[in-house]
């Protein structure tokens, strides 16, 4: 950087075009690179530990942890890791300011995107309410083709119901209700049975909403989240009605959480 001042002014070459401007490219010491790698691995372990600890504390010890703690801690650790990668692996720490500026401006743009898109979040519930006859939770999947939920029974003119309900109906129609019941109960919220590669189970329900504490009310009955109460007891023959029923319930749930 300072080499420019070291050279004397040459009237034949006022801009120094013919000088070899060797900034001396930075060679990052291997100790620094290795240290950064170890720090990154440490933070990876830390973020997993944080998530596991949080789950354990809630289900085993009955702690009450607000939902935002999960995302703030996880993103905080991720930001530290990302900073380490950008500063040392990508050498922004040693780089010219223009590249740093570029990167920071990009991050600013990302913030703009998310912030402005989220501006109307609190009002979307009103729109959903207003259009409640038309909105189908999770989408209907109608008209997509002979895949998944649309398999076999596509009728564009009828209220097709949400995808997840039709998939369930298809399964019951094909395998029978007993088979569904046998598979249906895999809500192991304590994390006792973990997913493996070939059978993934959901063990969720800890933080239903960023600012919601509603989930804790259901901890007492040993379930952990509210949606166990229905879904297993009411799959009769009237699936269309059933679907709408669920639809409303979920819409209300989601809406309710937004407002907290």
């Amino acid at each position: 950087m300072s080499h420019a001042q070291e050279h004397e002014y040459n009237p034949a070459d006022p801009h120094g075009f013919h000088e070899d401007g060797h900034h001396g490219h930075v060679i990052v010491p291997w100790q620094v690179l290795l240290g950064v790698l170890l720090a990154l691995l440490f933070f990876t372990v830390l973020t997993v530990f944080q998530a596991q600890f949080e789950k354990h504390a809630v289900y085993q010890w009955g702690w009450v942890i607000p939902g935002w703690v999960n995302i703030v801690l996880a993103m905080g650790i991720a930001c530290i890791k990302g900073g380490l990668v950008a500063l040392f692996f990508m050498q922004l720490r040693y780089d010219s300011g223009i590249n740093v500026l570029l990167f920071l401006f990009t991050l600013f743009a990302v913030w703009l995107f998310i912030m402005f898109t989220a501006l109307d979040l609190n009002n979307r519930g009103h729109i959903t309410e207003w259009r409640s006859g038309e909105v189908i939770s999770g989408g209907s999947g109608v008209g997509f083709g002979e895949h998944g939920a649309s398999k076999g029974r596509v009728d564009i003119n009828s209220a097709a119901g949400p995808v997840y309900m039709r998939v369930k109906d298809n399964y019951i129609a094909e395998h029978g209700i007993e088979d569904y019941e046998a598979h249906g109960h895999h809500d192991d919220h304590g994390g006792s049975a973990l997913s493996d590669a070939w059978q993934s189970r959901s063990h969720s329900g800890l933080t239903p909403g960023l600012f919601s504490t509603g989930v804790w009310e259901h901890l007492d009955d040993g379930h952990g989240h509210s949606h166990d109460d229905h879904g297993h007891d009411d799959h009769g023959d009237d699936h269309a009605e059933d679907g709408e029923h669920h639809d409303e319930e979920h819409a209300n749930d989601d809406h309710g959480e937004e407002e907290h």
Partner: protein
Amino acid sequence: MASIDTHQPALPQPGKEKVPLWQRYTHGHHWRNADDEFDGAKIGIWLFLATEVLLFSGMFCAYALFRLMYPESIAAGSGYLDWRWGGLNTVVLLISSFTIAMAIRNVQLNQQFWARINLLITWLCAAAFLVIKLTFEYIPKWSDGKRPGALFDYPFAQHAHENVWWSIYYVSTGIHATHVIGGMVLIAWLIYRQGKGAYGPTHYTMMEGVGLYWHIVDLVWIFLFPLLYLVH
């Protein structure tokens, strides 16, 4: 900070076959010196990386909104993923990021053998990432019926928007995996060219560029991992 003198007589010497490619390299005639060429190329790469960040920010934006709107579905969907595979893939990518940074350092110091070893490890890590992703995540999930949007065919869903979760999951990790494949092609090219002696202390622009690209792929995964695997 260790630094080296990049001022080399980078003149073509047609008679001497032993002079490696990187020493025979001369910068483009429209640049006043090799350093300006290097800096210009680097700004170009950073501009490209900016567009990459913006590309992924679309996915992060969708994730943020859907998590705020349907937190239970997102949490339930995340519950189907095993953090151990995601964690293993994180470690694999972090190591590969380290080795490509080391490879660049090796080239700067003209340690060609170690540069080759580090590039090979980087490539193998990228391959391992994809193998883990396909074998233990994409294939079992997809055949379970845990698919995006209207393709959703998993009868035991507990929440209405689980297919939305799978849309976010497949598209964000799919774009990322596509970048890993692209990185593998680029790193393979580096290995080939490095074998020809194309990179050395005065000329390693291509390695620097691919290295930066590879780090951004790592950087994106650093954020995707907790967002997808560690939600409760």
